[in-house]
């Protein structure tokens, strides 16, 4: 409970909004006006925060990757290059938006918008603080999955409307990958939902703060699988084959220039923010920090955690090479999905035992955590060995050194992509 419940108690912005709503009612407006006004304020607030975050993170990403590359990132535009994001945005706005003659005009124009919308809409169900959620749906988790699946149509529309075979290949690859990883996402989130017993995001955060534990400590496999599946869904490295610079130019958004390309670029960032937001909410405690939310505003905690998860994504982008589409898909179908099946079974059993016997949470959860960690590590290692990864045949190997001229050391080839 916040100490002061006045409108200037910014630890919970709901106080200010509540005061505004009362004020509007005092002015004699009908019942639905405060509701609409607070909704509009929330939407505008989220959008502004997203845009500002994106502009700042363009700079952060490029500096951080520059550090990983042992070089300085952008440092010319503005002090220390801080205005780089603004400069990029202005450049994209001023560029000529070339539309090839043979494209499908309506779809071409509508595709960037269609890609942008899911990324923003997901923020409606993410709780930024206590009661600071735009729309506390009963099926919040499922909503995130559903909106993410609209992405596939938008990607296809972008690729098809370009009337360009590279773009179409990129779009088809992307759709294949998206479909493959949707199931993994669903199962990872499902295991969280089973344990908590509710699909509402606010309930999951309350469960985590009530039991003083972050979900990823209890379900590491779901956490890792969701991060990987999310990386693929938002089309970020190591899964950005469809927009890989060193492959087929830029994949499904090859033909887009100017602000339309800016939309694709921004949509990728927004989708990554949304993904980070969902990860923080479901696996990392949301806006709670073991009681610190009494003093520090919940939304600051949430945003800090979100930025930390986003940093993880930047790190992965700077470090890992890119996987081929078919390798990614086979990883999903042959590896991750099987692990997720086992995970669901185990979680279901654990939840059943917990509910039936009505044990105390603080005794049962550490046991579950230990079981899940052991299971996660054991399963990953075992299954990888069974599938042939990490064996001497496919392990890294340095070249053999020799002094004899003319001798042949060939041992026979491994199959492709072993």
């Amino acid at each position, binding site marked *: 409970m916040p100490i002061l419940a006045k409108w200037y108690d910014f630890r919970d912005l709901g106080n200010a909004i509540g005061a505004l709503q009362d004020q509007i009612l005092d002015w004699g407006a009908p019942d639905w006006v405060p509701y609409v006004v607070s909704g509009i304020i929330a939407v505008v607030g989220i959008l502004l925060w997203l845009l500002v975050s994106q502009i700042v993170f363009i700079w952060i990403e490029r500096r951080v990757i520059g550090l990983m590359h042992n070089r300085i990132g952008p440092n010319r535009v503005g002090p220390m290059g801080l205005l780089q994001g603004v400069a990029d945005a202005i450049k994209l706005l001023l560029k000529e938006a070339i539309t090839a003659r043979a494209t499908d005009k309506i*779809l071409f124009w509508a595709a960037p918008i269609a890609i942008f919308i899911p990324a923003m809409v997901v923020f409606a169900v993410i709780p930024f603080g206590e009661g600071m959620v735009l729309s506390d749906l009963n*099926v919040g988790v*499922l909503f995130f999955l*559903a909106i993410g*699946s*609209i992405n*596939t*149509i938008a990607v296809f*529309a972008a690729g098809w409307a370009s009337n360009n075979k590279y773009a179409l290949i990129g779009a088809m690859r992307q759709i294949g990958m998206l*479909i493959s990883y949707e199931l993994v996402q669903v199962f990872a989130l499902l295991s969280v939902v089973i344990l908590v017993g509710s699909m509402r995001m606010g309930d999951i955060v309350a469960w985590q703060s009530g039991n003083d534990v972050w979900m990823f400590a209890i379900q590491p496999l779901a956490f890792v699988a969701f991060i990987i599946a999310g990386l693929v869904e938002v089309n970020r490295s190591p899964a950005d084959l469809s927009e890989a610079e060193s492959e087929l130019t830029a994949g499904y958004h090859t033909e887009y220039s100017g602000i339309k390309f800016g939309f694709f670029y921004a949509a990728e960032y927004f989708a990554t923010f949304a993904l980070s937001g969902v990860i923080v909410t479901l696996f990392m405690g949301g806006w709670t920090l073991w009681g610190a939310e009494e003093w520090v505003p919940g939304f600051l905690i949430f945003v800090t955690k979100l930025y930390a998860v986003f940093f993880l994504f930047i790190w992965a982008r700077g470090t890992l090479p890119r996987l081929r589409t078919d390798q990614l898909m086979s990883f999903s179908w042959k590896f991750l999905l099987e692990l997720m099946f086992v995970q669901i079974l185990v979680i279901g059993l654990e939840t059943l035992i917990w509910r039936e016997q009505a044990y105390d949470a603080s005794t049962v959860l550490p046991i579950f955590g230990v079981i899940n960690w052991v299971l996660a590590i054991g399963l990953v290692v075992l299954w990888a060995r069974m599938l042939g990864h990490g064996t001497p045949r496919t392990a890294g190997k340095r070249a053999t050194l020799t002094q004899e001229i003319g001798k042949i050391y060939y041992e026979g080839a491994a199959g492709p992509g072993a």
Partner: protein
Amino acid sequence: MDDTGTVVAFWAMAIMTVGSALMVGAVRNLIHAVIFLVLSFLGVAGLYITLSADFVGVVQILIYSGAISILVIFAIVLTPRAGRDNSETSMLVPGVVIAGLVATMLSYAAIETDWNISSREGFEETAQAIGEALLDKYILPFEVAGALMLVAMLGAIIIVRAEGAESETVEVEEVEE
């Protein structure tokens, strides 16, 4: 149908659904037709949500707009005549006539039937109710549907597999010459 919000939402969703469905039949380009189909699915999802069926509404988005439309798209893209104009067919007039007759029949049935208004209050937790029903009362259809889907997937794999193996041997011979 109480407050203005629900009425406005209903009419918006209804116009979107019916309008898009009409456009599916009316546009010439097949891919445009699919996009309008997606829009009409989204409209139906909106209608579900106005009826407080939140789970079904969201699942409608997930399954229909997310997966079934991709299925339709793949089917269109893989047919050789995907680029043809939708109106170049001799079935145009008979199609419209039959569709009109079916629509009239259904509307008549919908308007004239004495629908039974349920006395139960709305469900708060539709997801939970659906889950319990699926695993309690309707477990047999659930399992049968699962088995059916498994058989369909196996069938698809077998069809593709046999073709793939065949075409691979052909390719290898071509390269080796």
